[in-house]
């Protein structure tokens, strides 16, 4: 009886177009935001911040970026990892060249660099379609990681070839680097993720979202009703790579603390793709659900046997984890190709009419 739309009438189109036309949805969101902003930071242990909370947020944002391109605009990308790398290296260069730079500004600016690279590799998308386009993003993936390795300037010619996040202060508080506390880092990530997510919700629910979805669903028809396909696809590449780039900067600066080129290899691209698929292509919320699942699964697999007093080697757990993720992908594609987000939507539809379905 909690979930009811009865009695909630829309008297204007403005209200009908509101983000949460159903009151309970707004309540639920408030609850989640409350948990994320207030409850978790007080409850979470160091372990929880590092292995659950921060990674979930970072991966959600990366998957959200990929989802704009693949889920909304229908252009498959296998190069997300490398575009995260572009964001991370851009942020690193800005911070080392201008040490006084505000980290929020640096992180938000670094997205523009991956955006430019993304558009460059997106240019072929007008001529090359479908699976053939995957090759363009794969070319980006392998070529960029090779650049991270070979261009010394990118990692300031350090001996290890890796980039190391320095200590960064904002208003006298350490926000990144070895001195920063996990809570601060968490709030920093949460802030950026919240802002970017809101912007992406806005973009996808209006005109631009419809242009992207039309391009995805039937590009010829889209063109004949007046959509400039090149512009639509390049906008998707630009916006998507921007978000992915920002997530890459967060990935290194507020979570990993250091990065080698191979951190951004193709397995990272796939991890992000899995999150987007399992969460649901063409959904915003799905990215968060997918990230929670993918990040939490190995943690749970590690803890569960202990609870039952069984000992499993950590290598075995890792293999099991990969197997389960693979099975989950197939499972979701079979029972619900639109992922966790659609499952939630179905449950919601059922709840609205429960317990009298007719």
């Amino acid at each position, binding site marked *: 009886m909690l979930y009811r739309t009865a009695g909630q009438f829309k008297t204007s189109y403005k209200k009908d177009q509101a983000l949460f036309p159903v009151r309970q949805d707004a309540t639920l969101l408030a609850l989640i935001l409350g948990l994320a902003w207030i409850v978790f930071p007080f409850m979470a242990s160091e372990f929880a911040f590092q292995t659950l909370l921060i990674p979930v947020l970072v991966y959600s944002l990366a998957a959200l970026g990929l989802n704009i391109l693949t889920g909304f605009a229908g252009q498959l990308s296998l190069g997300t990892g490398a575009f995260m790398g572009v964001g991370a290296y851009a942020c690193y260069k800005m911070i080392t060249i201008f040490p006084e730079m505000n980290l929020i500004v640096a992180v938000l600016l670094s997205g523009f660099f991956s955006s430019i690279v993304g558009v460059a590799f997106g240019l072929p998308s007008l001529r*090359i379609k479908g699976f*053939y386009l995957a090759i363009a993003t794969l070319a980006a993936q392998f070529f960029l990681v090779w650049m991270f390795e070979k261009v010394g300037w990118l990692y300031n010619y350090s001996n290890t070839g890796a980039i190391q996040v320095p200590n960064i202060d904002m208003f006298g508080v350490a926000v990144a680097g070895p001195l920063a506390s996990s809570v601060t880092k968490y709030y920093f990530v949460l802030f950026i993720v919240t802002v970017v997510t809101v912007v992406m919700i806005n973009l996808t629910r209006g005109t631009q979202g419809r242009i992207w979805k039309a391009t995805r669903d039937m590009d010829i028809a889209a063109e004949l009703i007046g959509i400039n396909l090149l512009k639509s696809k390049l906008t998707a590449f630009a916006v998507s790579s921007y978000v992915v780039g920002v997530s890459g900067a967060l990935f290194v600066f507020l979570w990993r603390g250091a990065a080698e080129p191979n951190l951004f290899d193709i397995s990272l691209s796939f991890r992000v793709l899995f999150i987007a698929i399992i969460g649901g292509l063409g959904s915003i919320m799905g990215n968060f659900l997918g990230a929670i699942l993918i990040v939490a699964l190995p943690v749970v697999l590690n803890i569960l046997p202990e609870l039952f007093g069984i000992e499993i080697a950590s290598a075995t757990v*890792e*293999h*099991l984890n990969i197997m389960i*993720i*693979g099975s989950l992908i197939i499972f979701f594609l079979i029972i619900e190709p639109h992922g966790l987000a659609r499952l939630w939507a179905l449950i919601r539809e059922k709840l609205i009419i429960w317990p009298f379905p007719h």
Partner: protein
Amino acid sequence: MEFLSKIFVDPFVDMVAYPDFFLQVLWEGLVSGILYSLIALGFVLIFRSSRIFNFAQGIMVVFAALTLVGLHEMGVPAWVSVALTLVVMFGLAFTIERVVLRPLVGQPDIILFMATIGITLFLIGFGELIFGGETKVMITEQLGIPTGRMRLDVFDGYISLEEKDLTAVAAAGTLVVGLLIFLNKTRMGRAIRALGDDHQAALSVGISLQTIWVLVWFVAGIIALVTGIAWGARANVSFALEIIAYKALPVLMLGGLESISGAIIGGLAIGLLEKLFELYWGQPLLGGNTETWFAYVLALIVLLFRPQGLFGEKIIERV
């Protein structure tokens, strides 16, 4: 000017000045090219018969090799391991058809593609769970593959050929010829080819779609095993090999997803060109290791001019 000469003149001068080295490079490129072709071939077969862009083809190579070595390590004689691995590959084909393909019939291409990514992950986890994640050595000698070197005198120098590479080339060649005979001369083979053009027509031959799919995936499995043995003999057997499997993608793009001859030629071309580029341009000018990306960039450039690949048919858009 000096810079331009380094790009456009010096490499060719070197090729002519040291022809034995040039031939050696060509040979190395040819060998890896043939293996790329094989992976791509398995891929084309599956695509033609079911419109599935089978991302798992590469991992099937590793899985087959891992099963073979793993079984042998458990004490099974080498050739019995080969037979058992074939059984495993058949079981895999059967399971994939039952568990993955059948429930997903009629779904959009992209969904099926992602399902094969799921298969890829599952196989990685499953293979490592059973046979362990550590790198293994291919049982080259146990299978009776010669491991010596041959010296071939050419011009004023010589090139050195590994006998296992020669074996690989011979095996790959035999496999391709056998496959072409199978596809062109047998009823089943013709049904598979017809499937690429018209589902209904193919079904009228009287072979069920399910049977064809199991068969095609099994054939892809056999190809995977041969590729796995050949590649495992050159490197080692571990899931790091999957990076080679990704190379099948540019090969396919170059050759066109549906063309068998395209897969073979595309594979050879990429094998040769990436070796040449690496040794004559990559190492002297770019700091090396260009083989990681060359194939993809090449395929991308070709696709820009021919979006359907070198051998694919031109697409006419209709509404």
